[in-house]
């Protein structure tokens, strides 16, 4: 599929995703080695998005398994379709006389019924869930196992078999092997320590918040209409917010949302009023909002004082002050 790492970069960029060298290398290695990737990092830095663009870039179908507390095999792997089986039983009851016609001994009757029984536990009555779907798919697929840290430890252990051998055991049917080895991406927000065994089987990718430069690229790519200067200012502000002690730092997706909001509002530059009204797109906790506002007011005070010191008199001009109202 990919011959060099730069191929990966080009392909992902074509899907409007800006991969760092780390990401491109890891995806390339995963393709070559057939190993799953474990992507860890704060929420909203594009881990799930990576799976989507990876699937799109390689033309594979994306199968997603969202993990949560209490997720078990019946939800992730397969389930028997009881209702269908029940209907089938009734059908069988009607056909029972035909089936058992000419049978003289009990053993013979039991044998015939047993032959029918196998039909019950066949793939006909099986309801495939994401994992089984990914393994039995006719076409190669990309499997996204999202937020694995939310699932219980026992589910993680169950995943090991799937991830190392790409096969699953269904007691009634035996072992099902993958036709094509799916490309697997696991994401984790690191709320819980994952097991060593799982980590050992994966290539590890630590995705962090992008640098200002990368983030600006992302904003320009995702929100094309935004004036360059405004985009620059917006990214600077977001980067500064990330440096502050907040309960939840703004993620990349929130930066994009905010940039869209600014575009919708037809904002020309980031003045105080605009920030006041749109800051809640970036920050989701009241405490964080207040803290950020206080910091900005303080900043403004500092700047005014500095300017006064420099020039010996208070100065108010339009240029320079990012958070200054005008």
């Amino acid at each position, binding site marked *: 599929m990919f011959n060099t790492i730069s191929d990966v970069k080009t392909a992902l960029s074509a899907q409007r995703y800006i991969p760092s060298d780390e990401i491109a*290398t890891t995806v390339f290695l995963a393709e070559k080695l057939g190993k799953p990737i474990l992507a860890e990092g704060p929420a909203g830095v594009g881990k799930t998005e990576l799976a989507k663009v990876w699937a799109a870039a390689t033309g594979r179908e994306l199968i997603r398994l969202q993990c949560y*507390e209490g997720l078990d095999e019946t939800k992730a792997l397969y389930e028997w379709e*009881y209702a269908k089986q029940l209907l089938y039983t009734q059908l069988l009851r009607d056909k029972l006389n035909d089936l058992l016609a000419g049978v003289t001994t009990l053993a013979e009757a039991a044998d015939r019924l047993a032959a029918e029984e196998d039909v019950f536990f066949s793939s006909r009555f099986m309801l495939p869930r994401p994992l089984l779907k990914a393994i039995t798919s006719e076409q190669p697929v990309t499997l996204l196992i999202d937020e694995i840290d939310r699932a219980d430890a026992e589910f993680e252990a169950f995943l090991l078999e799937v991830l190392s051998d790409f096969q699953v055991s269904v007691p009634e049917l035996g072992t099902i092997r993958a036709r094509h080895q799916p490309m697997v991406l696991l994401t984790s927000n690191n709320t819980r320590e994952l097991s060593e065994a799982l980590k050992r089987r994966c*290539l590890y990718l630590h995705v962090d918040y992008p640098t200002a430069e990368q983030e600006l690229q992302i904003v320009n790519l995702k929100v094309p209409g935004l004036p360059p200067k405004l985009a620059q200012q917006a990214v600077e502000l977001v980067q500064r917010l990330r440096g502050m002690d907040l309960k939840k730092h703004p993620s990349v997706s929130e930066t994009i949302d905010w940039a869209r909001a600014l575009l919708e509002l037809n904002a020309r530059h980031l003045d105080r009023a605009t920030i006041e009204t749109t800051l809640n797109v970036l920050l989701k906790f009241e405490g964080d909002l207040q803290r950020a506002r206080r910091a900005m007011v303080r900043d403004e005070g500092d700047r005014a004082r500095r300017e006064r010191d420099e020039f010996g008199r208070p100065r108010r001009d339009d240029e320079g002050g990012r958070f200054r109202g005008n």
Partner: protein
Amino acid sequence: MDQRVVDFIHALRAKGVRISLAESIDAMRCVEIAGVADKQFFRSALRASLVKEPRDLPTFDELFPRFFGLDAPPPLQQPGGGMSPEEREQLAQMLQQMLASLTPEQLRRLFEMMMTGKGMSGSQMRQFIDENTTATQMTTGFQPWATRRALRELQFDRLEQLLQELIEKLREAGVGEAALRQLEQEARENRAALAQQIGNEVGNGLQQREAEERRRRPAEDLQDRPFEELTYRDDDEMRAVINRLAAQLRTRVALRQKRASKGALDAKSTIRANLRYSGVPLDIRHRRKHLKPRITVICDVSGSMRAVTGFMLMLVYALQDQISRTRPFVYYRTIADVQADFQQLRPEDAIRVVPERVQGGPWQTSLGACLATFTRDYLDAVDRRTTVIFLGDGDDHLSPPNPRAFETIKRRAHRVVWFNPEPPYRWGREDNHMHIYAPMCDAVHHVSNLRQLVAAVDGLFS
């Protein structure tokens, strides 16, 4: 290159990064696939296959340049590039003669490496250094010093003298001046590379020793370290540990509830669920028991207790989704309701300010009086569904014990549990009244470290 990667993996392990054999094999394959031409890709390939914990990333970043960057010692070259074959033959002979009579042994080997360009791998060099120098007890901060000492013990400075001797002999044998100068130059470059390699390996040795020592220290696991030994430095780490523990507890509680679905049969839900099977009860539903305790925590914030109290409250607040209501109180000489602080501030910040809500100084704990105040003013915080947790050592310096007030609380509460960091043999000594309160509690837990605290909190949900 393979050898270099292996050495790198050893160094990472020495620094405490856990790398399994499978992972080192992966690393080799990754390097093969990614190639070594582009340094950035090469680096990412190693990183993706070797480092699986965010906390190990700085270690990787620190060590990588040392092995593969500009800091890495250049490979040794074979001296004598500008010589004719006969001259080279002469060089080899003279070298043999000199080496044969050269002592001590380690100097002979160094000189040989310098003059033939056949070096050692990192691990061999380490062994060589270990065998020929006295063991150092220094930390990594003293690496330059330790390196100088190792070089001195290896008599590294005598190499120059030996080189001059050799050149002198070659000159007498009639080797051209230009070739000799080139030889000298190349030999000196080799010597510099050797010095650098020795320096690196000395550093790696120091790191390994540190890592081993760290492993040997038994109470390194924060969970098992007694509360009073935890310092402020550990705070960030502790917060992460507590969040992890809370997540663990949450999963455990969720699982326990799932498994305990053998409650009473829920007839209505069963009928509803089985309508689609024409009323045949295939899918039996049980009534789920939701355990969401209401908790009132009454914490001692005297100096000795502050750390435990902090961790306890942090843990309780990290478990907010498992607890239907929490009311925190703190006491010292007086008692205060600090719920408002927890509503307005983040738990970490709240814990810092709550001790200011109550009065008290050294030897001024007044548990009995505080219990009286509590029964007078705050009894609404206790009802028949509330689990009351006392967190304190049971010391009381100013007032007599107050079993009556305690009895009042107990009569109203669902359960009264006491978490005490003091060992039981100290209960009832001097000003301690624990022996009076303990028999009245439904459960008393001795909590002197995080692991015990978590086990005790876990008990609240069963």
